[in-house]
């Protein structure tokens, strides 16, 4: 026997849903809310993940950061007295030159900077030219430090985009003199705009000057607070982290069994931690979505049971005049699936809409994954089939004689 053509099943199913428009909308609402939640969450998740990925790739997955003191992230480790590093430590780390692309010693603090027009608080960093390599940061205009400026600790500086804006209104800055904590300092370069990074504060709110001039004129000590270490592509950062740790333990005379008084932060690990966090979030949100879809499915089952009860006599007539039980089953299932898929499609639209609205607040790109759209449609269909089956089977099993007289 040929099956009844799909349009002969779908048209009456659609007509039946239209007749009970309000009831249908309410029944599909559960699915719509569930799907909207999933689609919005996944889309927002995608967007923020893409942004984090972009930030990390900007900073570089090969980056290690060596700092004195213990790693206090996550509340572990105590603030212990740790002696600062020196330039000799930098030279020692630079010994791994075949594995490392750049080693940048830095020292930094929040300092008031003043131009003729304005004054502003920025992160002032003392570094050398390796800093720009380690942070993959190029200049928008001007030049980097000369060897002589670094050696002699000249009062020159390179400013970030935010500082450029605040002190010069984005106008001509090269050759101007700014005061950094009362030290007059010539602007020789402007850094390219980095954009909000989320990992730290505003990256662009920075002033970079030669390490020696920072140490002498701002810090008043010859300390090196941290080192940015860029590992060459293809070399394992974890391995390099161990080697740097080993070297530093030796140089800082940390005995075996004693806690390190420095720490090395691995960008790759940080990225993986963030990915892990987002996986946990996804799992949690999936559970919530599953519950709302279950509730939506029960809603559909409920409405289809009511619909079958309403149409008992009509189903009896159909069975008497030649509908096969499986054709009645197909009709009711079609109605349930149509209802669920309509809810699902509404949910997809609402979800994408929510994500688009959130984009403004969260400053993340809107990335609609076609896979999640397909998945939402597939899940809605499956819900229609699963939760429509009980009412459909009930309708198909009706006894035509009994059903027909129940009017």
């Amino acid at each position, binding site marked *: *026997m*040929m*099956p*009844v*053509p799909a349009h*002969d099943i779908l048209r009456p199913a659609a*007509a039946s849903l239209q*007749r009970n428009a309000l009831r249908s909308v309410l029944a599909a609402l559960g699915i719509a809310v569930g799907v909207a939640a999933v689609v919005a969450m996944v889309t927002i998740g995608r967007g923020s993940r893409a942004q984090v990925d972009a930030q990390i790739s900007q900073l570089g997955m090969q980056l290690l950061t060596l700092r004195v003191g213990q790693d206090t992230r996550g509340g572990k480790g105590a603030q212990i007295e740790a002696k600062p590093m020196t330039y000799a430590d930098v030279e020692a780390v630079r010994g791994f030159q075949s594995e490392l692309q750049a080693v940048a010693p830095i020292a930094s603090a929040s300092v008031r900077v003043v131009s003729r027009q304005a004054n502003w608080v920025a992160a002032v960093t003392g570094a050398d030219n390796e800093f720009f390599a380690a942070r993959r940061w190029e200049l928008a205009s001007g030049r980097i430090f000369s060897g002589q400026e670094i050696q002699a600790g000249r009062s020159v500086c390179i400013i970030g985009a935010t500082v450029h804006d605040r002190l010069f209104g984005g106008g001509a800055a090269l050759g101007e003199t700014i005061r950094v904590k009362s030290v007059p300092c010539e602007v020789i370069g402007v850094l390219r705009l980095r954009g909000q990074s989320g990992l730290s504060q505003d990256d662009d709110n920075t002033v970079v000057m030669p390490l020696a001039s920072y140490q002498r004129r701002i810090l008043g000590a010859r300390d090196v607070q941290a080192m940015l270490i860029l590992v060459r592509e293809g070399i394992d950062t974890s391995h390099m982290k161990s080697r740097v740790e080993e070297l530093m333990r030796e140089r800082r005379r940390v005995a075996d069994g004693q806690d390190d008084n420095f720490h090395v932060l691995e960008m790759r690990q940080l990225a993986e931690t963030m990915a892990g966090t987002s996986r946990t979030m996804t799992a949690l949100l999936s559970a919530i979505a599953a519950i709302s879809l279950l509730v939506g499915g029960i809603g559909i089952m409920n409405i289809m049971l009511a619909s079958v009860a309403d149409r008992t*006599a*009509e189903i009896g*007539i*159909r*069975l*008497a*005049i*030649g*509908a*096969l*039980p*499986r*054709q009645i089953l197909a009709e009711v299932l079609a109605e349930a699936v149509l209802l669920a898929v309509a809810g699902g499609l509404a949910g997809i639209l609402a979800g994408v809409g929510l994500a688009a609205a959130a984009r403004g607040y969260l400053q993340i790109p809107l990335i609609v994954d076609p896979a999640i759209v397909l998945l939402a449609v597939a899940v809605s269909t499956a819900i229609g089939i699963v939760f429509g089956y009980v009412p459909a089977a009930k309708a198909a099993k009706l006894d*035509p*004689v009994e059903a*027909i007289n129940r*009017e």
Partner: protein
Amino acid sequence: MSPILRDGEAHRHVGADCSAPLIRLEHVVRAYGRGAAVVTALAGVDLTITQGEFVAVVGPSGSGKSTFLNIIGCLDTPSSGRYRFKGIDTGTLDVTGRAMMRRSSIGFVFQRFHLIKRASALDNVELPLLYQSVPRGERRKSATAVLAAVGLSQRQHHTPDQLSGGQQQRVAIARALITRPDLLIADEPTGALDSVTGAEIMQLLKQLHRERGTTVVIVTHDPSVASQASRTICFTDGHIKPEHFDDAGSRT
């Protein structure tokens, strides 16, 4: 399912042979409930109806008429005994097999019409063909023709509530006939109609019987309706009273 069911068309016109038994009941019992509460609706019925007969079924309420109709219409099955329809033992058919039998060979007309309320006359009439997967164009054509045959060409797009009782019953008859059934079962087809309209419906049934040779079994309370049949079967307490035939009856 038997091949005969797949192809109702080829066997439909066997009716030319008027002596072939279409319906044959052997000791058919139908009881409802169980234990002390058991109700026997049919208490051992033996009956043969041949192709082309026009049979009236009469009897008081609760005498087993409806149960009898349900069984010969393959809507219900005997508790014991055997019912052969077109030579096939219906006891061997499952739910789907009985539905296949109904769709290919049996048409129903009910006292209360039982049309789909929101569907037009045309949609109601073509419904049995929809379930047989007949393409839409063909369905429309057949339904239009059958509606014309029952005199409702002008009412194709009316819904049941826009039609009078008699017109609704004509739609129901058209729906029953669209599959060209061997057997037309009518359960008090004039019961919900006034006497004039009822008479018109009887005329229509008789005309269709005459023109198409369809076997008609009609349940009625109305002696004037029963008198128009070629044979009358009278039920009391689940039994058939000894039959009597009118002058036109061929049996003795």
